[in-house]
């Protein structure tokens, strides 16, 4: 249980740092860190396949996309960054306060989880579910990947 608490807290901390840090690059690194912590949590929650996806796609691919985007757009000097940090702190000090308050408040709430499940125990193999039971979703994924490809072509071509 302790390890779960540590994981949960560090997940939120990483996310908060992602939001509050001044430099976009650090922000992206923070996002990758959040992803990694989330991956560990997923492993702990018996979901290895999704965890692998999370690690490779979110921590890897998305970070790469963001970093390339940042490198194409913004270059801050150290002084600018320091000034920005100050400005950000004046605006973002509220976030940790809210998070702590909300965390404490939510901890007091108790939601009963006594639903009895109507559906029969489902298929236990992820691949089977993806390929055989939810093939409509597969078509959706294929199409959305195609759409992404068209989008990249449409938005980046010169």
């Amino acid at each position, binding site marked *: 249980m302790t390890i779960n608490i540590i994981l949960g807290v560090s997940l939120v901390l990483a996310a908060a740092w992602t939001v509050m840090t001044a430099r976009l690059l650090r922000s992206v690194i923070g996002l990758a860190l959040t992803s990694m912590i989330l991956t560990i949590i997923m492993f702990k929650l018996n979901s290895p396949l999704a965890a692998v996806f999370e690690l490779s796609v979110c921590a890897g691919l998305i970070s790469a996309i963001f970093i390339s985007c940042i490198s194409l757009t913004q270059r801050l000097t150290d002084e600018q960054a320091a000034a920005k940090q100050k400005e950000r702190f004046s605006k973002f000090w509220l976030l940790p306060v809210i998070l702590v308050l909300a965390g404490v408040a939510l901890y007091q709430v108790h*939601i009963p989880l006594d639903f009895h499940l109507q559906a029969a125990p489902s298929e236990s193999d992820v691949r089977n579910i993806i390929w055989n039971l939810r093939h409509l979703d597969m078509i*959706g994924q294929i199409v959305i990947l195609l*759409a992404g490809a068209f989008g990249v072509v449409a938005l980046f071509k010169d």
Partner: protein
Amino acid sequence: MLSPLLLLPLLAIIILNLPIRSLTQKLSVWVGIGLSLWQIVAVVLLAMGHESADAWGKYFTLGLSCDNLTLVLLMSIGIVTLATILVGWQTIGGEKQRFGFMNLVFVAMIGMNGTVMLADLFSLYIFIEVTAVASFILIAFQRNTNALEGAFKYIILSATATVMMLLSISIILLVVGDTSFAAAGSAVKQSQGNPLVIVAIGLFICGLLIKGGVVPFHGWLPAAYSAAPAAASVLLAGIATKTSGIYALIRLTTSVFANNESVNSILLLAGTISILVGAFAAIGQSDFKKMLAYSSISQVGYIILALGCGTNLAIIGAVFHLFNHSIFKSLLFVNSAAVETQSGTTDMNKLGGLGTKMPVTNATSLIAFLSTAGVPPLAGFWSKLIIIIALWQNNLHTYATIAVLASVLTLAYLLLMQRKVFFGKVAEGLGNVKEAGWGITTAASILAAITVGVGVTFPWMFNSVLMPISSFLK
């Protein structure tokens, strides 16, 4: 017959993108016209009960389902896509660009067709997202700053909606362990008063209201509609956001929430606010397309209002108005495309007297405007009438009165538009304006003919086409 509606456009995309571009680039428009016409024919065949036409549908069942509501939506998707392709053909320069545009239209078509045929909350999310991604790119297609702004706002709000819907789906998964409509319906039925389920319902409704652009969730809509390229706004305003937001809402309120009274009261409120805010905002606009965008919010309000009323007649009215709206609003956007391409501006203060220069656009715009404002015997009148009668029968007199009064506002702002753009003296610098190309005028004529045809044949339509729609309400 159902799975080809998804698979044929997909096949078309794949074949068109094989490395024989020099050939396929020229064909893409024709493929698009063929696909949309085929969809219209397929819907007619389905409606007439040609189950035998489903020759290879049985090999790919894909868990799709089809009832009369689906058919109505499929029909309007086919019609509006056809209009979009015709307008896009005319307005998007360059063969390569047009090719990219057509690909995205096909993607949107798959997304919309999927949305209306599936029966699972998570799949619904996926196909809504497919439509949305295609819409983002279509809005930003020409990469001018305003269009990018519109697309970015749409992305942010749409992602917010997505998060809400996913949260709701996971709560339903928690309660029943499945995401199909049937399971969600049983969850709602069996756990009355469970706060988690209430939150799930609220989140899903709000997600769909964002997608559908209902006040106060509509912030992205004016920017997205008005900044999108002419052809894209036809698709977007006509059908894309209506399918992903409003259709899904109709489907869910009828089959999952089962006319829950609290849900209905929220829908009534949201609908009324939308009608009023949209109409008042539209009055103050000077930009043609932005006015149409706000008008769209107002008209969607009628659908939501009818949905909130919840009686069978009201829901028939909602579906009918959805269909009519998809026709007349895309017609208005086609006209705005004509005005935009020929005069180079959509600022109504700079326009004027185009009626004599562009007779087809003028006439069709007049039809669309009268239909939107609900003037008999055009299609829009009948659907509004049904909605108002349903509201009245259900003792929602205040809402009915507001709905009636708001159509006066509709008449006012559209009359203002018609006067500023088409009537009066020809504005400066517009002396050489000519009628738009045949692609646009064809699209406008088809849509106008449908509006008039549906309106004039309404007495026949009412019993033979509209009443059977209610069969999806069990």
